[in-house]
């Protein structure tokens, strides 16, 4: 058994063993079921020791992004690793939607202002105070974060990724560098011909036959579609 830390409150044998197992896992934490298997002792004593460690503020409960229903514990001096917390985009086991939304708005704004901007340009613009106002974010925004958000916007067809030619709109970006600009033309997802008719989104399309129970003649979705058109 490891020697007791003099600064720690007095712990029972089970508590002490449990604490050392939890601490050895550092930022990865441990699932309480796994903990019960590792710490030998009667189940009631183990449960009591766990509760005691929580009360003494030596360990904390954390939510694992991989399995939210699992009760995970970790020594208080550690921060959950990216594996457990999900990384910079997660807050209390869920996607930090508000943060992502604001960062996304900021990225779009700066791409629009620059017309064409590289990842570094966008990050620099976000960090800089504007017209005497402090930057929007008090926390550090990494280049990786800006890159990930811009790539997300590419997937949503909000911006497009292009290679700088060094002339025209690209004159402030070195030739050959990857950069982003707001999608030209209509932008965003397009309305396809197939998706705009009932059959395109019909959940029963595979049960539909020309003379069957479900057919284009008696189709309720068609009736709704054509009946809903106001002339």
């Amino acid at each position: 058994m490891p020697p007791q830390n003099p600064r720690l409150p007095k712990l029972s044998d089970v508590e002490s063993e449990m604490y050392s197992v939890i601490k050895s896992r550092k930022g990865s934490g441990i699932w309480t079921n796994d903990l019960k298997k590792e710490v030998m002792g009667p189940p009631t004593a183990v449960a009591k020791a766990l509760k005691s460690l929580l009360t003494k503020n030596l360990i904390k409960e954390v939510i694992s992004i991989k399995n939210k229903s699992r009760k995970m514990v970790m020594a208080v001096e550690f921060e959950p690793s990216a594996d457990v917390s999900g990384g910079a985009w997660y807050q209390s086991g869920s996607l930090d939607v508000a943060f992502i939304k604001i960062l996304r708005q900021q990225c779009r704004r700066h791409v629009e202002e620059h017309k064409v901007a590289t990842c570094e340009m966008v990050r620099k613009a976000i960090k800089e105070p504007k017209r005497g106002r402090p930057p929007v974010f008090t926390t550090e925004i990494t280049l990786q974060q800006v890159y990930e958000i811009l790539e997300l916007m590419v997937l949503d067809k909000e911006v497009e990724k292009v290679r700088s030619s060094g002339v025209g709109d690209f004159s402030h970006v070195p030739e050959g560098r990857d950069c982003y600009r707001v999608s030209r033309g209509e932008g965003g997802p397009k309305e396809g011909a197939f998706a705009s008719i009932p059959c395109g989104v019909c959940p029963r399309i595979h049960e539909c036959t020309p003379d069957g129970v479900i057919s284009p003649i008696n189709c309720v979705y068609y009736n709704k579609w054509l009946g809903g058109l106001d002339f």
Partner: protein
Amino acid sequence: MPASPTPREFEAIMVARHGIQLAVFLIKSHFGELVSKVCECLLNRGSLSFQELVRFAELDPDDKSRNSLLVKKSLLVLIQHNCVQAFSVPKLGGPGGLPKLQTKYMILFDNVLHRLRFAKFLAIVRNDLGPKCEALLEGLLQHGRLTFDQLVLRATSKQPEATQDCVRTNFNELVQSHYIERCPRADPFIAPTPETKPGRRGSKSSVEIPTIEEQAILAASLSDIERFSGISPATNAGVEEKDEKLSEHSPSVSVGNKRKREIEVDSDVQATISETEILWRANFEKFVHCLKKKACVENIRSRLGVDAAVILEAMIESNCDQKATENSSVTATMDAILEGVRRKPGGNAMALEQVRIILDQLGCHLCSEDTGALYTIDLKGVIEICRNDEVESLVLRRYGKEAFRILRLLVKDGGKKETDMIADTTFIEKKENQVLLYKLWKDEYLDVERVVTAVGKQLTYFLWEVNKKKLLMHIVNDMYHAALNLSKRAGHMIEQDPEILLPKQGLPEKLQKEKTAEKRRWMILQSSLAKLDDALMLFHDF
């Protein structure tokens, strides 16, 4: 095993079960039940001889003796309308017997589906060459194949003021623009392919042997010079002029006169044959090319703006590639592009530098030649974007924005991606990500591979990817189904009220309003079908 015209058609016919149903429906609504049964038989069983068709089609089960007559008539209709191509193959006789010739009939699946697009083909000619040429093409589309004489007869019966010379001028315009062509050979002979000697062990032959149907199409097709040689008047002014020059320099006038007469007689006979015996038909290849151009230009207009669309259109129109309708690559000189751009509305104001920048944005490849700067673009890239747009839009409507993001990620990067990696890149909650991936896999949008790591603690990973070929086939099949449904519903509306398209004057106001609304519903079905067909062509024809 059923066979079909080309590997692409084979795939379409074999996989797209709904494609067959759509083709049969089109033939049924245009030519009736009997012809559609013959068409269905050929689509399901592949190329067949006349006797096989009589046996399988069973047009009149009560009176089998009538079967051959009915099949013969149905085949004639299908051949007349360019939906069937005949070809001859050698058939071995009995032991020691001489080989005989057997005629087989193959269905031209693409040509059947083109029947959906006649209105689009007519609009192309109307915009390019005017209503008189459109009327001539209409005749060919209605009757499948006609001689020039028959076309003149049709034109003069409809418009008594139309003269033969006037019809000839319009006809030749259509031929020169490749909108119409001489019909292919009726019944080409296909010699048996010599069997290839087995190569060395392990060596693979990269040359694919064409199917008998592909060989038949090739053997039936005429050379471009034959296909598009127009009709000259019986006494050719050009010949006379040429002959005058000839006689001026000729030492003997009598020899010159004799030759002149010979040429005149030859050209007269040739002209009579051309006008009365040679059959003409619409050149679908050219129309598909025009619609492909339109789709590419529209896509560029929505993505890169009007100027880029004008430049691409000018570039396609000034393509110097001789096989423009077959190849997807477009090549044009800067001078030709500029000339084309200047002719277009809004193109006059475009400066050379602006054209250069847009050509660069379009992804054109620049190669300098003696004639000047030469730009090349492969339209396949634009078509690929159009296809992706269609699939993405479908996924967006069916599964939502997150699934749309997943599909875009997997299509953009290609290859396989692990579940958590997809969630991280697309910013989707991990659990929701798994649910969406499962749905997309279940509906055959994605393929999945299970990987188990044996090092240390055993872990299971799932790798996801888009199987483009499978996905496209699946979507095309669903599109055929949807096109069939739209056609059926529109057909049902006409059955319910055959006067749906007639003017509604003289009816009580309430009834008139109802009938007008019904007509508009029918028109919406038709316009949706036309748009869906545009999307279908993206996947099947371009």
